[in-house]
């Protein structure tokens, strides 16, 4: 077993492994190749053994599996205790968590237990050097994230502690193709847990399957505050239907109650990279832009010729969306 592996905490909800965990396995593989080390995964839960193969397919070499009925549903204290114990035992050099709600609950607790540095909500990870006080620390994890309301991008390092720990934003790490023949070693770990390790009683869990899948969609039509009336929103929806697209939006549109939170794109919403992104009445503030900048093509429709988005889109149309969208629809309809 390689003591300097890249370890990924695997999040599971209702026995399903979270997408972000698979994204992180792919990213861990990339980092581990650079560092010439292995990828390990830590899975906590109950009755998951049959689900572990997929972790090997995406690039894990070892899988630490802790099975206990009481770990079926995430709670902070026992999860943090076990992850900290696994880290102490196996000494990985890097530990990654998905920056999901539970990942961001767990990671700081683990970091405090181990007195290790932790960077939250990274959008990019690299391996590089860090110079300080005349010394150079080679091949350490560069943890890159937006801060200060998205106005700056900071590169953070934890040069003097091992492991380097980071939580990573969902949707930003690219998935590689799975290899169905790849195998990993499954290591069942035993952890001593007493009743006092489970202070939280889970009384009720209500989780709805996502009705919108922005991350996987090829075309997204997005509404900004320029879509102020119900009529314009209907027009945007019509365009989405005609193109077989999903609907996305900016944060103020969610705040105004026009569309649900799961449609929100940007720093505090989803990160997307569709083939085509049509921004309707969106000004193009940084916090929104970071969520869409990797789209293959962006069409921006905005009535203000000075709107920032018009300078960064691939195709820019200056005009009232209530006037532009019907022209698009007319053309699309003419194909049918």
């Amino acid at each position, binding site marked *: 077993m390689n003591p300097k592996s890249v370890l990924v905490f695997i999040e599971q*909800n209702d026995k399903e492994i979270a997408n972000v965990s698979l994204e992180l396995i792919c990213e861990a593989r990339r980092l581990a190749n650079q560092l010439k080390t292995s990828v390990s995964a830590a899975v906590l839960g109950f009755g998951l053994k049959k689900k572990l193969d997929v972790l090997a397919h995406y690039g894990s070499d070892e899988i630490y599996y802790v099975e206990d009925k009481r770990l079926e549903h995430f709670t902070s204290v026992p999860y943090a205790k076990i992850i900290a114990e696994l880290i102490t035992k196996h000494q990985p050099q890097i530990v990654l968590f998905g920056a999901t709600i539970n990942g961001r609950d767990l990671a700081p607790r683990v970091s405090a237990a181990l007195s290790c540095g932790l960077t939250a909500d990274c959008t990019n990870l690299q391996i590089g050097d860090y110079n300080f006080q005349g010394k150079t620390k080679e091949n350490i994890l560069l943890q890159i994230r937006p801060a200060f309301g998205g106005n700056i991008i*900071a590169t953070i390092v934890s040069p003097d502690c091992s492991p380097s720990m980071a939580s990573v934003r969902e949707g930003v790490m690219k998935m590689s193709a799975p290899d169905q023949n790849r195998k990993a070693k499954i290591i069942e770990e035993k952890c001593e847990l007493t009743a006092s390790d489970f202070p939280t009683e889970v009384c009720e869990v209500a989780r709805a399957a996502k009705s919108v899948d922005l991350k996987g969609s090829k075309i997204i039509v997005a509404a900004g505050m320029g879509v102020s009336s119900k009529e314009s929103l209907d027009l945007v929806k019509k365009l989405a239907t005609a193109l077989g697209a999903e609907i996305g939006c900016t944060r103020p549109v969610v705040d105004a109650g026009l569309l649900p939170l799961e449609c929100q794109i940007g720093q505090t919403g989803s990160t997307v990279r569709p083939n085509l992104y049509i921004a309707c009445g969106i000004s193009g503030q940084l916090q929104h832009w970071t969520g869409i900048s990797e789209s293959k093509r962006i069409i921006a429709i905005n009535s203000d010729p000075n709107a920032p988005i018009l300078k960064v889109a691939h195709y820019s149309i200056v005009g009232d969306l209530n006037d532009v969208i019907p022209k698009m629809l007319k053309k699309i309809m003419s194909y049918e």
Partner: protein
Amino acid sequence: MVLRIITLVKQVPDTANIPDNAMKADGTVNRSALPAITNPEDLNALEEALKIKGLITAITLGPPSAIKVLKESLYRGADDAVLVTDAKFAASDTLATSYALTKAIEKIGKFDIILCGRQAIDGDTAQVGPQIAQKLGINQLTGVVEIISADKEHVKVKRIIDGGYEILKSPLPVLITVRGEANEPRGPSVKRAMLYKNITCKCNESYDEAYLHPEIGCSCENIKQWSAEDLKADLKMCGLSGSPTKVKNIENVVLAARNTRMIANTAEDIGALMQELTKEHIIG
């Protein structure tokens, strides 16, 4: 039985409302020109504390000017306030911050509930709350939108999770982090603002006896100011030396212009664009 509640409030630059005069010519933000405010979700945490009607002590760690956020808490209904300030705490990352705040909480000694904001808008890290809970060895409930009940032994809360919510019950003591959706925080009371407008700090003031007898209630005559020494803090754990994370590099984000193609708002040009995208198999 009155619950002893500690609220953690942080002073942050107002990154959500960037005034025009804080924008530099190159499109980046001049951070020092931003107004300093109480972190918005910390006011939601304070509001939850006020709804529980316990005895509330607000704590902040920051420069002496952070007294402002303690006054804001007193104006809204906090019973007591502690300013943790010392040059030795400067340049703390979240781990060093949580260490100093943990020492302050330990100096206070007794508490039932600690309420924090979910995250601070300057760094968006959401780490300090859980790190304090771990250091104190107590349970945590993060991202809470409703405190359904709180009695002398348990709290029951509604917590947002990805794709839904869960209802959790925990024994006390517990640390709770509160999301903005939880409530609409009250504004300052005029009467309390008059009362506390000129309140000052008193160094190494030990904790009020009244706090240990919450039935009596307490009135806040001074803001207690505690230094690293007052907290018997291990200096290796404070400030820069207690911060395992270092900032290697900071870049201002400016939108990079592309070679944008302007499409005229005419049926012909828009039609031609749609056709082109269809040919490239991007649509259709």
